[in-house]
């Protein structure tokens, strides 16, 4: 066996492998548990010792999407046989379906607010980062520090002033209000990340475009943007993850119209006993969009993280 300085030895490879697999299990286990719980019956969900093998049920999902009320067995019998499979599930517990739950609405709110604020953060961030990277901005370093300082305190520290301000401005519990708030929080991250990416793009490309007869804006749009795509994609993922999962502001500032899924999901527990499968089902569906988004942009994300390192 030959010895190499750069190639790790077999033992090192094994060790690294175990470490990676161990870490992956550690992070994936809770996820797997949530997904599994979504397909259990309430009884299975709280069984002790915990059930790893169980017969799957869609009860959680049915409960997630419906609002139900309890009826007496006589009334139930008077209704006749259940017409749909989900009616059948509900009636096992002496309940009937009144209508759809609010989960769908809350989920849509999350989509609008999450993607809306991500778009705004990345859009404004790109423009600001370009200016910081390319132009002589007075007090540039102070401004950059100031922008970052908005991230230095916990959100809860500014929650009360924002709550009061939003009430005055009529922004409480509105989509616009939440989009603006998440944009404000994400913008600092987005400016800093994107400035790094744009700094890496040689200015000669734009100058070449200027000389080739394009305006400054065309040069930005046709030459800088395509090359910043990687940076923009990874920044968008980070912004989306934050605004998608944000809980504290959402709990404080939304209650009805603009409530997002994170503050809504826990309320499911209260509405029908300890309905853990419904909560787990809600969480599972909530995970999906961000997983799809990340997987779609994964190639960019990986390239983005190693950007400075591998670029010639």
């Amino acid at each position, binding site marked *: 066996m030959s010895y190499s300085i750069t190639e790790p030895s077999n033992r090192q490879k094994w060790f690294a492998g175990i470490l990676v697999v161990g870490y992956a299990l550690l992070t994936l286990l809770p996820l797997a548990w949530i997904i599994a719980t979504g397909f259990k019956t309430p009884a299975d969900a709280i069984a002790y010792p915990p059930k790893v093998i169980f017969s799957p049920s869609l009860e959680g999902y049915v409960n997630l999407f419906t609002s139900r009320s309890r009826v007496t067995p006589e009334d139930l019998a008077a209704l006749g046989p259940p017409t749909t499979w989900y009616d059948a599930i509900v009636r096992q517990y002496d309940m009937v379906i009144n209508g759809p739950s609010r989960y769908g609405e809350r989920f849509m709110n999350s989509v609008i607010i999450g993607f809306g604020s991500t778009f705004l953060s990345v859009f404004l961030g790109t423009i600001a980062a370009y200016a910081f990277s390319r132009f002589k901005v007075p007090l540039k370093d102070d401004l950059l520090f100031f922008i970052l300082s908005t991230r230095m305190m916990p959100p809860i520290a500014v929650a009360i002033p924002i709550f009061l301000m939003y009430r005055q401005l009529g922004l409480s519990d509105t989509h616009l209000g939440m989009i603006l708030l998440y944009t404000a929080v994400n913008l600092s991250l987005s400016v800093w990340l994107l400035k790094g990416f744009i700094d890496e793009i040689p200015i*000669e*490309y734009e100058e070449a*475009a*200027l*000389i*080739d*007869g394009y305006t400054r804006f065309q040069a930005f749009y046709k030459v800088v943007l395509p*090359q910043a795509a990687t940076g923009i994609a990874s920044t968008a993922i980070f912004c989306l993850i934050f605004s998608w999962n944000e809980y504290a502001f959402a709990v404080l500032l939304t209650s009805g119209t603009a409530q997002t899924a994170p503050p809504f999901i826990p309320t499911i527990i209260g509405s029908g006993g300890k309905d853990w499968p419904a909560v787990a089902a809600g969480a599972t569906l909530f995970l999906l969009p961000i997983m799809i988004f990340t997987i779609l942009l994964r190639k960019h994300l990986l390239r983005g993280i190693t950007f400075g390192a591998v670029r010639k």
Partner: protein
Amino acid sequence: MAQIVIKNLRKEFGAFTAVQSSSFTIEDGEFFMLLGPSGCGKTTTLRMIAGLELPTAGEIYINGTEVSQKPASKRDIAFVFQMFALYPHMNVRKNISYPLVSQGMPRDQVRAKVDEVAKILGITALLDKPVGGLSGGDRQRVALGRAVVRDPACFLMDEPLGALDAEFREHMAQELRALHDRMHATTVYVTHDQLEAMQMGDKIVVMNHGVVEQFGRPQEIYDWPATTFVATFIGSPAMNLLPFEGMVGHGATSVMLAGTEVQIPKMISGSDGTLVLGVRPEHVHLDDAAAYRGRIMAVEYLGTTQIVTLDTPLGLVKARLSSNKMVTVGETVGLRFDARSISLFGSDGRALISTANHGVLHHG
């Protein structure tokens, strides 16, 4: 095609002055070299001509029109960047087409034009390749293609061969010059390599610390440097400079060097104090009859010639001699200088005017 006139051009970056007050003229169709050591303001000057940098003061005329405050896109120039700056997200054809597309030229015309340029540059086979995998020379050709395709009024090139390895530079330099001879487009070319400037240029501007030291044909600049800086910057080995205390007046034909008389061209201007005598190594001859003497310190063999270093009363002198000439290290010999080719510099480092150099230095 274009004539470019630079008048009192100045550029300050904050408190730092990158270009002091440059004036020179680039005639239509000339291959013009901006030469000087690194940091002397060549790139800044070129960028001002291009419109990528606005001058602090002064004027730039392209074909008689003052353009110093106009945007780059309005100047009808092409710029070849040191690192080529090919758009990395486009293939070769797109890169070369780009300037034409911006003018709104119809597709089929763009295609025809790009094909024609690619043929001239010998890169037809590369047209559909991404620029990422190209070799240095091919990148250079694509960058040239992007410049040539537009038929601009002039080409500006910032050390275009700087990114190539030595072997390939020579070849590319010839290709560039051949391209120029074929197109006769006014070209301004920045380099810090005096050999490159001498070989390729029709005219040269020599800059130092933001100041234009001299402006003229390569031969003129080589033979009659306007300052001691030019004398040492151009030529390898550099011109020998021998400082001495003395005085020359109008009409003088000789100076006293360490007690021996040395013939010089007939002077038109005069000076006194610490003067400097300049003589190129090829104009130094070993002659036992000569009164100015030196001891041979070292010999460097260069094939047909040899460089002999001598220790003389006023400092080291290098002589370029034929390799046939037998020299012995340690020997003391007489040095004779070609009188007609000697330059004299005043204490300010500027050449004094003589009958030999006044033709060059007056219109410079």
